[in-house]
Protein backbone atom coordinates (compact mmCIF):
# COMPACT_ATOMS: atom_id res chain seq x y z
CA UNK A 1 0.00 0.00 0.00
CA UNK A 2 1.44 3.35 -0.95
CA UNK A 3 0.23 6.89 -1.30
CA UNK A 4 1.04 10.43 -0.35
CA UNK A 5 -1.39 12.50 1.64
CA UNK A 6 -1.60 15.97 3.05
CA UNK A 7 -2.26 15.40 6.73
CA UNK A 8 -4.67 17.62 8.67
CA UNK A 9 -4.41 16.50 12.32
CA UNK A 10 -6.67 19.19 13.76
CA UNK A 11 -6.41 20.63 17.27
CA UNK A 12 -7.48 17.51 19.20
CA UNK A 13 -4.83 15.26 17.68
CA UNK A 14 -2.23 17.71 18.94
CA UNK A 15 -3.61 17.63 22.49
CA UNK A 16 -6.46 15.57 24.00
CA UNK A 17 -6.18 12.88 21.32
CA UNK A 18 -2.41 12.74 20.79
CA UNK A 19 -2.63 8.93 20.87
CA UNK A 20 -4.83 8.99 17.76
CA UNK A 21 -2.10 11.03 16.04
CA UNK A 22 0.80 8.80 17.04
CA UNK A 23 -1.04 5.56 16.30
CA UNK A 24 -2.22 6.86 12.91
CA UNK A 25 1.33 7.89 11.99
CA UNK A 26 2.74 4.56 13.18
CA UNK A 27 0.22 2.57 11.16
CA UNK A 28 0.81 4.64 8.02
CA UNK A 29 4.55 4.14 8.36
CA UNK A 30 4.03 0.38 8.55
CA UNK A 31 1.84 0.45 5.43
CA UNK A 32 4.24 2.65 3.46
CA UNK A 33 1.80 5.57 3.36
CA UNK A 34 3.47 8.96 3.36
CA UNK A 35 1.91 11.74 5.43
CA UNK A 36 2.89 15.38 5.04
CA UNK A 37 1.40 17.58 7.73
CA UNK A 38 -0.11 20.71 6.18
CA UNK A 39 2.25 23.58 6.98
CA UNK A 40 0.50 26.30 8.96
CA UNK A 41 -2.89 24.55 9.17
CA UNK A 42 -5.48 26.31 11.32
CA UNK A 43 -8.47 25.14 13.39
CA UNK A 44 -11.53 24.07 11.35
CA UNK A 45 -13.80 26.16 13.61
CA UNK A 46 -15.96 23.15 14.55
CA UNK A 47 -19.39 23.74 16.22
CA UNK A 48 -18.67 27.24 17.62
CA UNK A 49 -18.05 28.49 14.07
CA UNK A 50 -20.97 26.87 12.25
CA UNK A 51 -23.34 27.76 15.10
CA UNK A 52 -22.55 31.45 14.86
CA UNK A 53 -21.34 32.29 11.34
CA UNK A 54 -21.79 30.27 8.19
CA UNK A 55 -19.14 32.32 6.37
CA UNK A 56 -16.54 31.75 9.10
CA UNK A 57 -17.34 28.03 9.22
CA UNK A 58 -16.50 27.73 5.52
CA UNK A 59 -13.54 30.12 5.43
CA UNK A 60 -11.52 28.46 8.21
CA UNK A 61 -11.39 24.93 6.72
CA UNK A 62 -10.83 26.28 3.21
CA UNK A 63 -7.67 28.06 4.32
CA UNK A 64 -6.14 24.74 5.43
CA UNK A 65 -7.24 23.05 2.19
CA UNK A 66 -5.66 25.92 0.26
CA UNK A 67 -2.39 25.39 2.14
CA UNK A 68 -2.50 21.68 1.25
CA UNK A 69 -2.96 22.51 -2.42
CA UNK A 70 -0.03 24.93 -2.19
CA UNK A 71 2.14 22.00 -1.10
CA UNK A 72 1.22 20.30 -4.35
CA UNK A 73 -1.02 17.72 -2.71
CA UNK A 74 -4.60 16.93 -3.63
CA UNK A 75 -5.64 14.25 -1.15
CA UNK A 76 -6.15 15.57 2.37
CA UNK A 77 -6.60 13.07 5.18
CA UNK A 78 -8.37 14.17 8.37
CA UNK A 79 -8.73 11.55 11.15
CA UNK A 80 -10.92 13.65 13.49
CA UNK A 81 -14.54 13.05 12.47
CA UNK A 82 -15.48 16.66 13.21
CA UNK A 83 -12.58 18.15 11.21
CA UNK A 84 -13.34 15.66 8.43
CA UNK A 85 -16.96 16.83 8.30
CA UNK A 86 -16.08 20.54 8.45
CA UNK A 87 -13.41 20.30 5.73
CA UNK A 88 -15.73 18.32 3.51
CA UNK A 89 -18.71 20.59 4.12
CA UNK A 90 -16.67 23.73 3.41
CA UNK A 91 -15.38 22.34 0.14
CA UNK A 92 -18.87 21.19 -0.83
CA UNK A 93 -20.51 24.55 -0.06
CA UNK A 94 -17.85 26.79 -1.58
CA UNK A 95 -17.96 25.06 -4.94
CA UNK A 96 -21.76 25.19 -5.13
CA UNK A 97 -22.30 28.97 -4.95
CA UNK A 98 -20.40 31.51 -7.13
CA UNK A 99 -21.40 34.49 -4.97
CA UNK A 100 -20.09 32.79 -1.87
CA UNK A 101 -16.95 31.82 -3.76
CA UNK A 102 -16.14 35.47 -4.47
CA UNK A 103 -16.59 36.42 -0.82
CA UNK A 104 -14.42 33.55 0.31
CA UNK A 105 -11.52 34.29 -2.00
CA UNK A 106 -11.68 37.89 -0.75
CA UNK A 107 -11.42 36.61 2.84
CA UNK A 108 -8.60 34.18 2.03
CA UNK A 109 -6.78 36.60 -0.27
CA UNK A 110 -6.36 33.83 -2.80
CA UNK A 111 -8.27 31.70 -5.26
CA UNK A 112 -10.15 28.85 -3.64
CA UNK A 113 -8.68 25.35 -3.62
CA UNK A 114 -10.38 23.38 -6.38
CA UNK A 115 -8.59 20.11 -6.85
CA UNK A 116 -8.60 18.78 -3.34
CA UNK A 117 -10.25 15.68 -1.99
CA UNK A 118 -10.92 15.23 1.71
CA UNK A 119 -10.55 11.69 2.98
CA UNK A 120 -10.86 9.84 6.25
CA UNK A 121 -8.22 7.26 7.23
CA UNK A 122 -10.92 4.57 7.03
CA UNK A 123 -11.15 5.35 3.33
CA UNK A 124 -7.42 5.13 2.68
CA UNK A 125 -7.18 1.84 4.59
CA UNK A 126 -10.16 0.39 2.73
CA UNK A 127 -7.92 -1.87 0.65
CA UNK A 128 -8.31 -4.89 2.91
CA UNK A 129 -5.71 -7.08 1.21
CA UNK A 130 -2.70 -4.84 1.81
CA UNK A 131 -3.80 -4.30 5.39
CA UNK A 132 -4.27 -8.02 6.02
CA UNK A 133 -0.78 -8.77 4.65
CA UNK A 134 0.78 -6.53 7.31
CA UNK A 135 -0.78 -8.37 10.24
CA UNK A 136 1.80 -10.09 12.45
CA UNK A 137 -0.09 -10.50 15.70
CA UNK A 138 -3.34 -12.21 16.51
CA UNK A 139 -5.74 -10.46 18.86
CA UNK A 140 -7.94 -13.27 20.17
CA UNK A 141 -10.47 -12.62 22.88
CA UNK A 142 -11.27 -9.12 21.68
CA UNK A 143 -14.95 -8.47 21.10
CA UNK A 144 -15.18 -5.01 19.67
CA UNK A 145 -18.11 -2.79 18.84
CA UNK A 146 -17.28 -0.13 16.24
CA UNK A 147 -18.65 3.26 17.19
CA UNK A 148 -18.78 5.62 14.19
CA UNK A 149 -20.58 8.51 15.88
CA UNK A 150 -22.35 11.25 13.97
CA UNK A 151 -20.13 13.05 11.58
CA UNK A 152 -18.34 10.39 9.56
CA UNK A 153 -21.56 9.57 7.76
CA UNK A 154 -23.89 12.54 8.31
CA UNK A 155 -25.23 14.35 6.44
CA UNK A 156 -24.88 11.67 3.73
CA UNK A 157 -25.38 14.14 0.88
CA UNK A 158 -22.14 15.87 1.83
CA UNK A 159 -20.15 13.11 3.48
CA UNK A 160 -20.88 10.30 0.99
CA UNK A 161 -19.21 7.92 3.38
CA UNK A 162 -20.48 4.39 3.77
CA UNK A 163 -24.10 3.57 4.70
CA UNK A 164 -25.31 6.43 6.91
CA UNK A 165 -27.53 4.51 9.31
CA UNK A 166 -25.49 1.31 9.60
CA UNK A 167 -21.91 1.75 8.37
CA UNK A 168 -19.56 -1.25 8.10
CA UNK A 169 -16.20 0.21 6.97
CA UNK A 170 -14.55 0.12 10.40
CA UNK A 171 -15.99 -3.35 11.09
CA UNK A 172 -14.68 -4.64 7.77
CA UNK A 173 -11.24 -3.15 8.38
CA UNK A 174 -10.93 -4.65 11.86
CA UNK A 175 -12.29 -7.99 10.67
CA UNK A 176 -9.65 -8.08 7.95
CA UNK A 177 -7.10 -7.82 10.79
CA UNK A 178 -8.65 -10.85 12.47
CA UNK A 179 -10.45 -8.85 15.16
CA UNK A 180 -13.98 -9.89 16.03
CA UNK A 181 -16.51 -7.07 15.77
CA UNK A 182 -20.11 -7.29 16.92
CA UNK A 183 -23.43 -6.04 15.60
CA UNK A 184 -25.09 -3.46 17.83
CA UNK A 185 -27.62 -0.64 17.73
CA UNK A 186 -25.61 2.46 18.64
CA UNK A 187 -23.06 2.69 15.82
CA UNK A 188 -24.14 6.14 14.72
CA UNK A 189 -25.94 7.48 17.78
CA UNK A 190 -24.73 10.80 19.17
CA UNK A 191 -22.49 10.93 22.28
CA UNK A 192 -23.31 14.59 22.95
CA UNK A 193 -20.12 15.86 21.35
CA UNK A 194 -19.00 19.28 22.47
CA UNK A 195 -21.65 19.45 25.21
CA UNK A 196 -19.16 17.75 27.56
CA UNK A 197 -18.13 21.14 28.91
CA UNK A 198 -21.54 22.81 29.03
CA UNK A 199 -24.43 20.31 29.07
CA UNK A 200 -22.60 17.52 30.85
CA UNK A 201 -25.81 15.75 31.93
CA UNK A 202 -26.83 15.32 28.29
CA UNK A 203 -23.44 13.76 27.53
CA UNK A 204 -23.64 11.44 30.52
CA UNK A 205 -27.09 10.20 29.49
CA UNK A 206 -26.31 9.67 25.80
CA UNK A 207 -22.97 8.04 26.57
CA UNK A 208 -24.56 5.78 29.19
CA UNK A 209 -26.98 4.49 26.54
CA UNK A 210 -24.08 3.73 24.20
CA UNK A 211 -22.01 1.95 26.85
CA UNK A 212 -25.05 -0.01 28.00
CA UNK A 213 -25.78 -1.39 24.54
CA UNK A 214 -22.09 -2.20 23.97
CA UNK A 215 -22.09 -4.18 27.20
CA UNK A 216 -25.43 -5.83 26.40
CA UNK A 217 -24.17 -7.33 23.12
CA UNK A 218 -21.12 -8.71 24.90
CA UNK A 219 -18.40 -6.29 23.81
CA UNK A 220 -15.20 -5.92 25.83
CA UNK A 221 -13.90 -2.87 23.97
CA UNK A 222 -15.16 0.00 21.85
CA UNK A 223 -13.37 1.18 18.71
CA UNK A 224 -13.75 4.85 17.77
CA UNK A 225 -12.68 7.25 15.03
CA UNK A 226 -13.34 10.61 16.70
CA UNK A 227 -11.54 12.44 19.55
CA UNK A 228 -14.78 13.84 20.96
CA UNK A 229 -16.47 10.44 21.02
CA UNK A 230 -13.34 9.12 22.71
CA UNK A 231 -13.26 11.84 25.34
CA UNK A 232 -16.92 11.34 26.22
CA UNK A 233 -16.81 7.53 26.34
CA UNK A 234 -13.42 7.21 28.04
CA UNK A 235 -12.71 10.20 30.27
CA UNK A 236 -16.34 10.44 31.44
CA UNK A 237 -16.88 6.69 31.95
CA UNK A 238 -16.13 6.70 35.71
CA UNK A 239 -18.53 9.63 36.18
CA UNK A 240 -21.25 7.79 34.24
CA UNK A 241 -20.75 4.64 36.31
CA UNK A 242 -21.07 6.67 39.48
CA UNK A 243 -24.13 8.63 38.38
CA UNK A 244 -26.05 5.63 37.04
CA UNK A 245 -24.71 3.08 39.53
CA UNK A 246 -23.46 0.88 36.74
CA UNK A 247 -20.22 -0.87 35.97
CA UNK A 248 -18.97 -0.89 32.38
CA UNK A 249 -15.17 -1.05 32.49
CA UNK A 250 -15.05 -0.79 28.70
CA UNK A 251 -11.71 0.35 27.24
CA UNK A 252 -12.19 2.77 24.34
CA UNK A 253 -9.54 2.49 21.63
CA UNK A 254 -8.93 4.36 18.42
CA UNK A 255 -9.24 1.95 15.49
CA UNK A 256 -5.69 2.96 14.54
CA UNK A 257 -4.45 1.64 17.89
CA UNK A 258 -6.09 -1.73 17.18
CA UNK A 259 -4.49 -1.75 13.72
CA UNK A 260 -1.13 -0.97 15.30
CA UNK A 261 -1.48 -3.83 17.77
CA UNK A 262 -2.31 -6.24 14.94
CA UNK A 263 0.72 -4.98 13.01
CA UNK A 264 2.93 -5.85 15.98
CA UNK A 265 3.72 -2.25 16.98
CA UNK A 266 4.54 -2.03 20.72
CA UNK A 267 1.66 -0.68 22.86
CA UNK A 268 3.73 2.22 24.18
CA UNK A 269 4.23 3.49 20.63
CA UNK A 270 0.44 3.57 20.22
CA UNK A 271 -0.38 5.61 23.32
CA UNK A 272 -2.53 2.86 24.83
CA UNK A 273 -1.63 3.97 28.36
CA UNK A 274 -3.00 7.47 27.86
CA UNK A 275 -6.60 6.33 28.28
CA UNK A 276 -8.55 6.69 31.50
CA UNK A 277 -10.15 3.24 31.27
CA UNK A 278 -7.12 0.96 31.17
CA UNK A 279 -6.84 -1.61 28.41
CA UNK A 280 -3.95 -3.43 30.10
CA UNK A 281 -6.13 -6.23 31.45
CA UNK A 282 -7.82 -6.79 28.11
CA UNK A 283 -4.56 -6.77 26.20
CA UNK A 284 -2.43 -8.72 28.66
CA UNK A 285 -0.91 -11.66 26.90
CA UNK A 286 -1.26 -9.87 23.58
CA UNK A 287 1.04 -6.92 24.01
CA UNK A 288 3.78 -8.85 25.78
Amino acid at each position, binding site marked *: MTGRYAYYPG*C*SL*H*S*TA*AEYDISFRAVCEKLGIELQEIK*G*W*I*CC*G*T*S*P*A*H*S*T*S*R*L*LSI*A*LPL*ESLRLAEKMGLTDVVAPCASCFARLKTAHHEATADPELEA*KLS*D*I*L*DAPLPKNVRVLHPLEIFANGEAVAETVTRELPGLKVVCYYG*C*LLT*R*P*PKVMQFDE*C*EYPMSMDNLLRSLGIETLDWSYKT*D*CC*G*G*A*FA*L*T*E*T*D*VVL*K*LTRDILEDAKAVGANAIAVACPLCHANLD*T*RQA*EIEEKYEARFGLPVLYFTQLMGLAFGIPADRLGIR*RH*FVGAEGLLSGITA
Partner: protein
Amino acid sequence: MQLELTIPAQSELAEAVFRESGQNVNLCFQCGKCAAGCPVSYAMDYTPLQIIHAVRLGLDDLVFDSKTMWLCASCETCTTRCPQEVDVARVMDAVKTIALRRGVKPAIPRVASFYKASLASIRNFGRMFELGMIVDLKLRTFDFLKDAGLGVKMLRKGKLKLFPSFTGARTTRRIFRRVKRLESESRGS
Protein backbone atom coordinates in the same frame (compact mmCIF):
# COMPACT_ATOMS: atom_id res chain seq x y z
CA MET B 1 -55.32 52.53 13.04
CA GLN B 2 -55.20 50.65 9.82
CA LEU B 3 -55.66 46.94 9.89
CA GLU B 4 -53.25 44.73 8.01
CA LEU B 5 -55.59 42.43 6.17
CA THR B 6 -53.23 40.44 4.03
CA ILE B 7 -51.38 37.48 5.39
CA PRO B 8 -47.83 37.37 4.06
CA ALA B 9 -46.90 34.17 2.26
CA GLN B 10 -43.81 33.86 4.36
CA SER B 11 -43.07 35.08 7.88
CA GLU B 12 -40.22 37.50 8.38
CA LEU B 13 -38.47 34.98 10.54
CA ALA B 14 -38.74 32.27 7.88
CA GLU B 15 -37.32 34.81 5.43
CA ALA B 16 -34.42 35.59 7.77
CA VAL B 17 -33.71 31.88 8.26
CA PHE B 18 -33.71 31.41 4.50
CA ARG B 19 -31.24 34.27 3.98
CA GLU B 20 -28.97 32.88 6.67
CA SER B 21 -29.06 29.23 5.68
CA GLY B 22 -30.70 28.77 2.28
CA GLN B 23 -33.25 26.54 4.00
CA ASN B 24 -36.95 26.81 3.20
CA VAL B 25 -38.91 25.75 6.30
CA ASN B 26 -42.17 25.90 4.33
CA LEU B 27 -41.24 22.58 2.77
CA CYS B 28 -41.88 20.93 6.14
CA PHE B 29 -45.03 18.79 6.20
CA GLN B 30 -44.73 17.98 9.91
CA CYS B 31 -43.95 14.28 9.64
CA GLY B 32 -42.02 14.41 12.90
CA LYS B 33 -38.97 12.39 11.88
CA CYS B 34 -36.64 15.15 13.11
CA ALA B 35 -38.23 15.14 16.56
CA ALA B 36 -38.32 11.33 16.71
CA GLY B 37 -34.66 10.93 15.83
CA CYS B 38 -33.27 13.81 17.89
CA PRO B 39 -31.13 12.38 20.71
CA VAL B 40 -31.49 15.54 22.81
CA SER B 41 -35.22 16.25 22.29
CA TYR B 42 -35.91 14.79 25.77
CA ALA B 43 -34.11 17.81 27.29
CA MET B 44 -35.61 20.46 24.98
CA ASP B 45 -38.65 22.60 25.74
CA TYR B 46 -39.81 22.38 22.11
CA THR B 47 -38.89 19.64 19.66
CA PRO B 48 -37.03 20.60 16.46
CA LEU B 49 -40.34 19.97 14.63
CA GLN B 50 -42.10 22.56 16.78
CA ILE B 51 -39.34 25.10 16.25
CA ILE B 52 -39.55 24.63 12.47
CA HIS B 53 -43.30 25.22 12.67
CA ALA B 54 -42.87 28.28 14.90
CA VAL B 55 -40.38 29.73 12.39
CA ARG B 56 -42.97 29.24 9.63
CA LEU B 57 -45.59 31.03 11.70
CA GLY B 58 -43.20 33.82 12.66
CA LEU B 59 -43.50 33.21 16.39
CA ASP B 60 -40.26 35.05 17.18
CA ASP B 61 -40.65 35.09 20.96
CA LEU B 62 -41.32 31.38 21.20
CA VAL B 63 -38.35 30.58 19.00
CA PHE B 64 -35.84 32.94 20.61
CA ASP B 65 -36.88 32.13 24.20
CA SER B 66 -36.57 28.39 23.64
CA LYS B 67 -33.70 26.17 24.70
CA THR B 68 -33.98 23.94 21.65
CA MET B 69 -31.33 25.38 19.33
CA TRP B 70 -28.86 25.78 22.20
CA LEU B 71 -29.30 22.08 22.97
CA CYS B 72 -28.81 21.00 19.35
CA ALA B 73 -25.72 18.75 19.36
CA SER B 74 -25.29 19.13 15.56
CA CYS B 75 -25.48 15.35 15.17
CA GLU B 76 -27.27 15.84 11.84
CA THR B 77 -29.76 12.98 12.39
CA CYS B 78 -32.70 15.28 11.60
CA THR B 79 -31.02 16.60 8.47
CA THR B 80 -30.26 13.06 7.33
CA ARG B 81 -33.80 11.80 7.78
CA CYS B 82 -35.94 14.74 6.62
CA PRO B 83 -37.97 13.48 3.63
CA GLN B 84 -38.36 17.07 2.42
CA GLU B 85 -34.60 17.62 2.55
CA VAL B 86 -34.82 20.51 4.97
CA ASP B 87 -31.42 20.83 6.64
CA VAL B 88 -32.90 21.05 10.13
CA ALA B 89 -29.52 21.25 11.90
CA ARG B 90 -28.62 24.20 9.73
CA VAL B 91 -31.92 25.88 10.58
CA MET B 92 -30.90 25.51 14.26
CA ASP B 93 -27.55 27.17 13.43
CA ALA B 94 -29.35 29.96 11.58
CA VAL B 95 -31.68 30.60 14.51
CA LYS B 96 -28.69 30.81 16.88
CA THR B 97 -26.84 33.15 14.55
CA ILE B 98 -29.87 35.43 14.22
CA ALA B 99 -30.48 35.35 17.99
CA LEU B 100 -26.90 36.41 18.76
CA ARG B 101 -27.00 39.14 16.11
CA ARG B 102 -30.25 40.54 17.50
CA GLY B 103 -28.80 40.51 21.01
CA VAL B 104 -31.34 38.00 22.32
CA LYS B 105 -30.36 36.58 25.70
CA PRO B 106 -29.81 32.84 25.07
CA ALA B 107 -32.01 30.51 27.13
CA ILE B 108 -28.85 28.54 27.92
CA PRO B 109 -26.17 31.23 28.26
CA ARG B 110 -23.31 28.80 28.99
CA VAL B 111 -23.60 27.29 25.52
CA ALA B 112 -23.25 30.73 23.94
CA SER B 113 -20.32 31.39 26.32
CA PHE B 114 -18.68 28.18 25.12
CA TYR B 115 -18.97 29.36 21.51
CA LYS B 116 -17.47 32.73 22.40
CA ALA B 117 -14.61 31.28 24.43
CA SER B 118 -13.79 28.76 21.69
CA LEU B 119 -13.88 31.32 18.90
CA ALA B 120 -11.68 33.70 20.90
CA SER B 121 -9.15 30.90 21.32
CA ILE B 122 -9.16 30.04 17.62
CA ARG B 123 -8.93 33.69 16.61
CA ASN B 124 -6.05 34.47 18.97
CA PHE B 125 -3.97 31.34 18.57
CA GLY B 126 -4.82 29.93 15.14
CA ARG B 127 -5.53 26.58 16.76
CA MET B 128 -7.67 25.76 19.75
CA PHE B 129 -5.81 26.14 23.05
CA GLU B 130 -8.04 23.93 25.20
CA LEU B 131 -6.69 24.85 28.63
CA GLY B 132 -6.94 28.58 27.93
CA MET B 133 -10.41 28.13 26.45
CA ILE B 134 -11.60 26.27 29.55
CA VAL B 135 -10.26 29.01 31.86
CA ASP B 136 -11.97 31.62 29.66
CA LEU B 137 -15.24 29.65 29.78
CA LYS B 138 -15.04 29.47 33.58
CA LEU B 139 -14.51 33.23 33.79
CA ARG B 140 -17.60 33.73 31.65
CA THR B 141 -19.82 31.27 33.55
CA PHE B 142 -18.39 31.61 37.11
CA ASP B 143 -18.49 27.83 37.38
CA PHE B 144 -15.00 27.20 38.71
CA LEU B 145 -15.40 23.80 40.36
CA LYS B 146 -17.03 21.93 37.48
CA ASP B 147 -14.78 19.19 36.11
CA ALA B 148 -11.79 20.43 38.12
CA GLY B 149 -10.82 16.87 39.08
CA LEU B 150 -11.17 15.68 35.51
CA GLY B 151 -9.02 18.57 34.31
CA VAL B 152 -6.23 17.68 36.72
CA LYS B 153 -6.35 14.06 35.60
CA MET B 154 -6.19 15.12 31.95
CA LEU B 155 -3.19 17.33 32.66
CA ARG B 156 -1.46 14.40 34.34
CA LYS B 157 -2.14 12.17 31.35
CA GLY B 158 -0.63 14.86 29.13
CA LYS B 159 -3.95 15.42 27.37
CA LEU B 160 -3.93 19.20 27.78
CA LYS B 161 -1.16 21.40 26.45
CA LEU B 162 0.17 23.99 28.88
CA PHE B 163 1.03 26.56 26.24
CA PRO B 164 -0.71 27.66 23.06
CA SER B 165 0.79 27.33 19.60
CA PHE B 166 0.65 30.55 17.62
CA THR B 167 0.86 28.85 14.24
CA GLY B 168 -1.63 30.47 11.93
CA ALA B 169 -2.71 33.11 14.45
CA ARG B 170 -2.11 35.93 11.98
CA THR B 171 -4.21 34.13 9.41
CA THR B 172 -7.13 33.44 11.74
CA ARG B 173 -7.16 37.06 12.92
CA ARG B 174 -7.36 38.21 9.31
CA ILE B 175 -10.11 35.71 8.49
CA PHE B 176 -12.19 36.70 11.54
CA ARG B 177 -11.77 40.41 10.73
CA ARG B 178 -12.79 40.04 7.11
CA VAL B 179 -15.73 37.74 7.87
CA LYS B 180 -17.02 40.33 10.31
CA ARG B 181 -16.62 43.12 7.77
CA LEU B 182 -18.37 41.20 5.00
CA GLU B 183 -21.21 40.20 7.30
CA SER B 184 -21.85 43.77 8.42
CA GLU B 185 -21.69 44.97 4.78
CA SER B 186 -24.24 42.43 3.61
CA ARG B 187 -26.57 43.42 6.47
CA GLY B 188 -26.19 47.07 5.57
CA SER B 189 -27.11 46.50 1.93
